[in-house]
């Protein structure tokens, strides 16, 4: 199985653990992820202004490059996935913007939204299949009670993202059960973590994170997993703001659990030591 792969800036720096664990797991699963040659930052947030095209041209470049190889484009960071998927939707559905972008970029071939963008979780569910993944599990996470945190960017807006049922998703819980863990159901799993508000309004985000963490704890979670570097930062760093530096619930990327269940690596010690 071979795919184009778009990493994004954060996975090369602060969230290197997300990329490293995902790539290692993919190799072990026989999935070839070919990093695109000349990718650029996706811009981190999808431009909601419809009167300018510049903010999503870098996404269009990546989408067009993937189309040239004929491969689906795999993303891993939830924000990159959100931006690329929505930019692709615009290219597919808005003729005017599509023409403008093509005129500006002067690509050898016109790009009209032909690439399929899939997130790493969709890769596991739809391309490999969770049943095939289950057979590769060497160290099942039996007895571990894990809360999945979806956040916003993978799920919403539902009509464009088409990732899962936006109000009652199950892909992450199905993934956790495939690894042998017990998935914890709790009401805040699709809530917003506060995203970039933590740049300016840490207090607000700390309050939002506190609600999420407490809800997961009340429902018996021993750890929480996410797929977004900014959710990860907020859940981990701002959790400690309201608990006076104490980490009441360890936070992992979903790929760290995958790595562990495949017998490739144990999770980092310090986060387990509570």
């Amino acid at each position, binding site marked *: 199985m071979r795919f184009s792969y778009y990493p*994004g*800036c*954060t996975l090369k*720096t*602060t*969230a290197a653990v997300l990329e490293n664990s995902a790539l290692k797991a993919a190799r072990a699963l026989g999935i070839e992820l070919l990093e695109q040659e000349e990718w650029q*930052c996706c*811009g*981190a*947030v999808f*431009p*909601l*202004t*419809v*009167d300018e095209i510049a*903010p999503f041209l870098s996404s269009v470049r990546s989408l067009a490059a993937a189309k040239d190889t004929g491969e689906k484009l795999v993303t891993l*960071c939830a*924000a990159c996935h959100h931006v690329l998927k929505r930019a692709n939707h615009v290219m597919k559905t808005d003729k005017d913007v599509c023409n403008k972008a093509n005129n500006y970029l002067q690509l050898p071939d016109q790009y009209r939204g032909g690439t399929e963008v899939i997130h790493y979780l969709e890769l596991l569910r739809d391309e490999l299949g969770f049943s095939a993944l289950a057979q590769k599990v060497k160290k099942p996470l039996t007895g571990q009670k894990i809360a999945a945190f979806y956040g*916003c960017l993978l*799920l*919403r*807006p*539902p009509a464009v993202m088409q990732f899962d049922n*936006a*109000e009652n998703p199950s892909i992450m819980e199905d993934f956790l059960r495939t690894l042998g863990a017990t998935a914890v159901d709790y009401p805040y799993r699709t*809530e*917003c973590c*506060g*995203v*970039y*508000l*933590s*740049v*300016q*309004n840490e207090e*607000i985000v700390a309050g*939002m994170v506190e609600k999420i963490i407490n809800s997961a704890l009340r429902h018996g979670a021993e750890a929480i997993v996410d797929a*977004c*570097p*900014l959710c*990860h*930062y907020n859940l981990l*760093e701002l959790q400690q703001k309201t608990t006076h530096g104490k980490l009441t619930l360890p936070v992992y990327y979903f790929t760290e659990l995958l790595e562990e269940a495949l017998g490739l690596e144990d999770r980092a010690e310090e986060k387990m030591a509570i």
Partner: protein
Amino acid sequence: MKITTQSLCGTMVKEIAAISGENVAKCYQCGKCTAACPVNMAMDILPHQVLRFLQLGLVEAVLNCNTIWICASCFTCAGRCPRGVDLPGVMEALRAILLRKRGFSRFKAGDMPRVLNKGMPEQGIVSGFRKYTK
């Protein structure tokens, strides 16, 4: 009385429509967006009220509220709105008017060390620049 974008006073509401692609007259004030909003407790004008203000042409009041800077573009409201109103898009248009035309900048290069030292991921820093500066 039928409210259309055309009949709304001022060019500002039309400008918001041009930037966001959304027609504020679509909203019928059910309040579902406000009920869904995870940051409504920190807003001075609630999400559904933002639309009501705009329907009445009270653009300046909305441009001066903290709500547009508190909105996290989480898309929860847009996903649940029975009228399909793209409220995060309207919030973005309001921010864009201030950033593009009135020189607002709420996140400056000088703020970088503060957030970088905390381990803020690049995704957060770029988002900050995209949302709070021109």
